[in-house]
């Protein structure tokens, strides 16, 4: 695990104390190591997302916390007590499943009341809390409907209410928005974030959608092939990606490969001063960091280069240019400009070229 992830793992977010500790957890299925030595601390009250491609291990990690799988190695602790040795029905953890998993033979009300009924809560208390939970997700008028009569978005809300009514210490969300269409998804993202803020419950969210992760989370834990690639806030992870993989996974970037020789970084035709020992190097340069150099003037903290425009992709508010810089194809994002062609001068700040591990 790279150093940046290691340090972030120990740092808890500002919100509260540490709620969940994942200590050196590994999980193996047959001959496959799905999770390798994961250590992560989750702070009370934070919205943290496990982000990664399919097969990265994010869902497995979630299921370990929920209790549906056992770690092959390592331990999980919550609020100072050992968690992974307790069965799922005894954990103060609740899950919102990817396809909602609502009980088809029970009404919405009965679904939401389930967790309370099972713990022998009094009928009056159940009534009040269920009503409260349904109001929270705006599903009161559907209380006596069957799940099969509800749309995907409505079922999702019920699943949320069903989990939250139990006042868990930690709420797990397994790609809950992936089955919704784009508009509904955006709307639910907003509601989810507001809900979390309001309730103050710790959310552990799983998704493969990096935009979703950045919009919702206090912190993102990026998983790759069963290991933590980087754990940081969305702004931090975007501005200072630790590795090339992170830089490319989150947002778009240009990867500049080159070398440092005699305190000069050279990537193709681009050169700038860079204080470091001689070594091969990779830089991440975000497309929006590059601008068209209007007057041809360059500050000493900037790098100027000439490139010819190969492609222009109009995007409404902005445009994406694909430019040929001495044989290397770079992407440049600028405000809407009108059609462009031919050769132009471009410029970027040296500070925006982030050095990343390969």
């Amino acid at each position, binding site marked *: 695990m790279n150093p940046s992830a290691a340090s972030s793992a120990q740092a808890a977010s500002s919100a509260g104390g540490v709620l969940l500790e994942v200590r050196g957890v590994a999980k193996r299925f047959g001959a496959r190591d799905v999770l390798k030595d994961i250590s992560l601390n989750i702070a009370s009250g934070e919205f943290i997302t496990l982000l990664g491609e399919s097969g990265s291990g994010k869902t497995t990690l979630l299921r370990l916390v929920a*209790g*549906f*799988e*056992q770690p092959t190695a390592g331990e999980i602790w919550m609020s100072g007590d050992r968690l992974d040795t307790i*069965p*799922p029905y005894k954990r103060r953890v609740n899950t919102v499943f990817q396809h909602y998993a609502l009980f088809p033979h029970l009404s919405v009300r009965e679904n939401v009341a389930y967790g309370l009924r099972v713990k022998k809560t009094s009928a009056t208390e159940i009534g009040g809390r269920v009503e409260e939970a349904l109001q929270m997700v705006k599903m009161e008028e559907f209380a006596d409907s069957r799940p099969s009569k509800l749309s995907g978005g409505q079922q999702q809300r019920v699943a949320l209410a069903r989990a939250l009514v139990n006042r868990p210490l930690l709420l797990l969300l397994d790609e809950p928005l992936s089955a919704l269409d784009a508009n509904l998804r955006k709307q639910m993202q907003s509601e989810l974030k507001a809900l979390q803020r309001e309730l103050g419950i710790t959310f552990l969210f799983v998704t493969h959608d990096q935009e979703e992760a950045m919009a919702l989370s206090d912190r993102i834990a990026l998983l790759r092939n069963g290991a933590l690639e980087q754990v940081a806030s969305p702004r931090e992870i975007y501005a200072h990606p630790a590795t090339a993989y992170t830089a490319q996974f989150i947002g778009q970037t240009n990867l500049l490969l080159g070398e440092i020789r005699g305190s000069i970084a050279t990537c193709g035709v681009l050169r700038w001063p860079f204080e470091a020992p001689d070594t091969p190097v990779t830089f991440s340069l975000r497309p929006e960091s590059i601008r068209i150099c209007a007057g041809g003037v360059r500050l000493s903290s900037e790098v100027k280069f000439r490139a010819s425009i190969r492609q222009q992709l109009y995007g409404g508010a902005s445009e994406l240019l694909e430019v040929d810089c001495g044989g290397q194809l770079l992407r440049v994002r600028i405000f809407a400009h009108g059609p462009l062609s031919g050769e132009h001068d471009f410029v970027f700040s040296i500070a925006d070229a982030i050095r990343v591990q390969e």
Partner: protein
Amino acid sequence: MSSATSFRRAPLLTFYAAVVFIFIYLPVIVLILYSFNRDGVGGFPPHHLTLDWYRLLFADAPIWDSVVNSLIVAAGSVALSLTLGLLAALALDRATFPGKALFRRLVLLPLILPGIITGLSLLMFAVLVRTQLSLFTVFLGHGTALISVATTELFAGLQKMDRVQEEASLDLGATPWQTFWRITLPNLKLSLIAAGLLIFTLSMDEIAVTFFLIGRDNTLPLEIWGRLRRGITPEINAVSTLIFVVSVGLIVFWYRVRTRGLGADAQELLERP
């Protein structure tokens, strides 16, 4: 991957399941064991293992005659049931006609009704049309009663089939008849085989309906029945063991052909629509 298995084993349930298994297999094991017992059935434990009963069995002509009779009846039943069952399934899937609901229930009735009722009804019918009871009447009885099996299986197969294929065939210029032979039927291959095997098995073991429609020639179950009335001999154990072994062999064969294939051809033949 379910939590039930990953979290705790259930020793009591496992033990109970094992007990049920033993209960299911007990007669079969006793049957096979005592087919080798010199002193016949009964007593414990069996000693003096011998193949005498099998030797006796192979020399026993009436039993083998009845086996042949059963095979003939079974083969005929498969042909009759599959043909009518296929038509019935197609009718239920694609046509509407008055009395369709009644028809559907009527076809399925022999499956759920005790065989004695169907058998007696057919007997009365045979008497009405003054037909002599024989293997032919048995064949008609089996074939009719087992239409339900074919219909259920083939109907399910039709539902699973994508109708678009037939539309594409017609679109490309094939007549409905050609479409049936080239597209519909091959798609039903697996259902036809499954239904055929099931009908064959049920016919071979059919007793209740056969009981009332049998003439002079016996089917195997009826032959065994006759002997049982006269007294128990381990020869019956021997023939049952043989049938069991053959049946298991057939299942294993069918299973392997279906999943692993006896070579690429067989697999492809079964999979290709």
